[in-house]
């Protein structure tokens, strides 16, 4: 059987990990070789994802490059993968960030180098798998499998509180996802009841007519799993721990890709599978999102630790994404997907540079720095650019997404935009204030005066990030065009079902009233 591009994109990192396994490195002699092999594999994966994009028909909302093989036929489980505009871009993002994560670990990972890169590659494979899966069972397998390498990355190579953070990360995510498993099984069972055969095929399950009461519970199960992953306030408490304790590469991947799996889950699964429940819950989720936006920003403002600050800023930014999804119109949804990509690039970049500072000084406290512009002007420039991108300065990547989200949310209910707008202002406050304290002024600690500027491998990771931040800000169409048909389809699917239901007033046994009016 032929192996398509999509399969290659996740099998290649697995193969790379297997290759590393066979490089003997008991005494650390081959660390260099291992780094290079990993870098080459991850760049090759990125090339594969770009090839995917090249062969992708941007005008079509359908899933493309589909591969399908029976896997567990008795239950209608298939190895079924494909991409549409939304998942394509997220896969490309994963492919893009992994080499950067590899470079960020180039010298900062000193012990057990081989195992570190094995776990990193396995993590990449699982993340790509999550975005590719069109079979809910397959999706769940990747979703859960992803936890294991991340757990080890945090737990072995993290900072002081790493064990606590790693276990917390694992248990939080699992607790959410197992309930989703029940809902997935329930869906397959409903499909069996309706058609006489089990199926985990997402496209078939989309067409299933699910009773409102069932939708209510299943949506909750899915939503909690994704809300923990996003993380949506008040499920966010694992995030600061995981981020702060993870090694730089872990933070970059965590912020850049892993969190997107939660918002992606909302877009791909929770909302279109259960449109009625989604319409019912959307205002509540949006309220949580707005709380998250403001809360994350306020907490970020008072953090003494740079990494923690960036972690809380993620809570705030991801709140925007969720708000955009809840708006359930094309603008909002498109903005949400765009913001996922933009946040991946800019927050990935922030963690990367904070990691560089932390490698040099072995501290991440803002008060330990100051006046860094003098010894390291180039790093400062890069950080400035990424900071502005993160704030949402027009012309950089953060602006487009936030703007579209606000537009979408405004069309839905202007009240949310007030809260979200406050978050935009606050983000400028906490980011610029940190920037000022770290980089401007006089060198307050003599150790900082002699810090080296960007090293060669750091250039390698900073340049692509800055470049893409500018490209995304100036030419958003490159990214908006492929996702538009897919986003439109998701929105239409939800609206169709909702209007059908509203016309048919027949909604029995609904907890409260699921038929809310939508604009």
């Amino acid at each position, binding site marked *: 059987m032929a192996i398509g591009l999509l399969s290659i994109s996740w099998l290649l990192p697995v193969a790379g990990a297997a290759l590393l396994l066979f490089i003997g490195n008991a005494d650390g002699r081959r660390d260099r070789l291992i780094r290079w092999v990993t870098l080459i594999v991850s760049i090759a994966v990125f090339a594969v994802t770009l090839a995917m994009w090249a062969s992708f028909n941007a005008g079509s909302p359908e899933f493309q490059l589909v591969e399908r093989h029976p896997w567990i036929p008795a239950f209608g489980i298939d190895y079924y993968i494909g991409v549409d505009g939304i998942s394509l871009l997220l896969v490309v993002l994963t492919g893009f960030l992994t080499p950067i994560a590899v470079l960020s670990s180039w010298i900062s990972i000193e012990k057990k180098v081989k195992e570190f890169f094995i776990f990193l590659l396995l993590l990449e494979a699982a993340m790509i798998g999550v975005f590719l899966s069109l079979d809910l069972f397959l999706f769940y*397998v990747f979703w859960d499998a992803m936890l*294991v390498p991340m757990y080890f990355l945090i737990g072995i190579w993290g900072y002081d509180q790493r064990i606590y953070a790693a276990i917390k990360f694992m248990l939080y995510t699992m607790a959410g996802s197992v309930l989703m498993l029940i809902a997935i099984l329930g869906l397959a069972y409903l499909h069996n009841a309706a058609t006489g055969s089990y199926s985990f095929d997402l496209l078939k399950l989309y067409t299933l007519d699910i009773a409102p009461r069932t939708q209510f519970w299943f949506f909750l199960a899915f939503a909690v799993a994704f809300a923990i992953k996003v993380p949506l306030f008040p499920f966010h408490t694992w995030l600061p721990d995981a981020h702060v304790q993870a090694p730089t590469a872990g933070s970059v991947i965590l912020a850049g890709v892993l969190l997107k799996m939660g918002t992606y889950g909302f877009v791909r699964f929770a909302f279109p599978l259960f449109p009625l429940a989604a319409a019912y819950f959307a205002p509540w989720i949006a309220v949580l999102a707005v709380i998250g936006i403001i809360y994350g920003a306020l907490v970020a403002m008072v953090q003494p630790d740079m990494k923690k600050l960036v972690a809380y800023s993620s809570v705030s930014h991801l709140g925007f994404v969720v708000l955009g999804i809840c708006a359930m119109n094309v603008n909002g949804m498109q903005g949400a997907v765009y913001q996922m990509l933009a946040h991946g690039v800019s927050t990935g970049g922030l963690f990367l540079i904070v990691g560089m500072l932390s490698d040099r000084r072995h501290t991440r406290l803002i008060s330990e720095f100051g006046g860094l512009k003098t010894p390291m002007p180039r790093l400062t420039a890069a950080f400035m650019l990424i900071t502005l991108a993160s704030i949402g300065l027009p012309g950089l990547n953060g602006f487009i997404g936030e703007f579209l989200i606000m537009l979408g949310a405004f069309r839905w209910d202007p009240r949310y935009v007030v809260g979200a707008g406050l978050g935009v202002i606050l983000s400028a406050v906490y980011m610029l204030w940190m920037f000022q304290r770290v980089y401007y002024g006089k060198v307050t600690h003599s150790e900082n005066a002699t810090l080296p500027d960007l090293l060669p491998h750091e250039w390698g990771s900073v340049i692509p990030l800055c470049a893409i931040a500018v490209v995304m800000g100036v030419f958003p169409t490159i990214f908006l065009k492929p996702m538009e048909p897919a986003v439109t389809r998701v929105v239409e699917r939800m609206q169709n079902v909702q209007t059908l239901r509203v016309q048919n007033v027949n909604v029995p046994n609904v907890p409260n009233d699921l038929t809310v009016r939508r604009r």
Partner: protein
Amino acid sequence: MRSIPAAIQAIVPMLSVALAALACMAAEAFREKDERMPIGGLGIVGLIGAAISAAFLWNGNTASFGVISGDNFGLFVTLVLVAVGILTIMFSSQVVDRDGIPAGEYYTLILFALVGMIMMATATDLLVIFIALEILSLAVYVLTGIRREDARATEAAFKYFLLGAFSSAFFLYGIAFTFGLTGSTHLDRIGSYLAAQSLSDNPLILVALGLLLVGFAFKISAVPFHMWTPDAYEGAPAIVTGFMSTGVKAAAFAAFARVFLSSFEPFSADWAPIVWVIAAATMILGTVVGVAQTNLKRMLAYSSIAHGGYLLVGLVAANEVGKAAILFYLAAYAITNLAAFGVIALLGARDRANDELRDYAGLWYSHPGLSALMTVCLLSLGGLPPTAGFIGKWYIFSAAVSAGYYGLAIIGVLTSVISVFFYLRVVVMMYMQERGTEAPRIHINAVSMTALTVAIVAIFYLGILPTQVLNLAAQSIATIF
């Protein structure tokens, strides 16, 4: 198999193991003092014979003497038990020499226990089930205390013996009641008699059912009849614990499922709620108490209690999926758990069991391979993909969901998250803690390493390509229920 008279074909697997057991006994008798003899090899030959004959009997639906049935259900469990036996013997090759366990007696007892287990899985008469139960129990009591110089092992054996005898009495009493009510001990006849009865006419049926339930619950260590398990599992040599926690459980479960899903099937509406409560309590207690353990064997004892609870979920669901799920789960659990205990056994020393959690600190640095294998086992026990344990759990919970037992499924998944917490504690110890003192380097012999490798490959095979085994499990239940 054609040359063998049809009437005894169904007992060939059992005979093969029994002959191997006798051969081991004879070999021990002829062994010179201090002569090294591959006695375990004889056992493996016998077990392979059993596996081959079971494969020949597949789909044959043979029966011997009216009390042993060679149906696919029994054969599937037989194959699982053979796998358990072979892995146990392979792990033992290192342990027996190291700990000075008398090899002849040890292997003979293992094999006789297996004979009892296979008999229990294939028997279709309550009395034969009882005899099988006694054959396996007696062997396992002795195995528990086979290291006589170890006080803990002796205590464990005695406790296990007393409570086991107690539960056997319950079981026997249940058989007596059933016989009194139905006039037969044969499962088919009991089933056809009971199908025409109603509980209101004949409340004694509930008594018979309850007593049998208690007997089985003891053997599969379901709450509240689990008290003996942690002590027995902790006290016994690690490899024997692995053997008990998989083999005995598989055999007892096979008989449990056979009796309750065929003979007492007409009253499933009456026993299902009771088993529901037992299953929920077993899952919860097993995981919650497991969290508090600091001894690895004891922790895995509680974990195996919890796994018994998951199996009970399949029994409660009692639909096609549930019955097949029990079989698949038994296979997945048996291999995983045995491999985990295998690692514990291999890491032990004669004078020191090395089974406290803190003994695993920094194991990764001294034994990277063993730690990786142990991690795979633990992740499989915790039900993470892509391992056998994940597919097993998924199968069990899909049975529960399709039978409408959402509550049980939710308890199941939540307890499995809790269980991941304590499995991860071991992983944390191995990978994320430094060891204070230099760990002694332990040499693992080739046979044990092969066994571990095979087990790990099987765990991934069942986790990634489960279709064939799932189909086998589905076929197995098609023939009898």
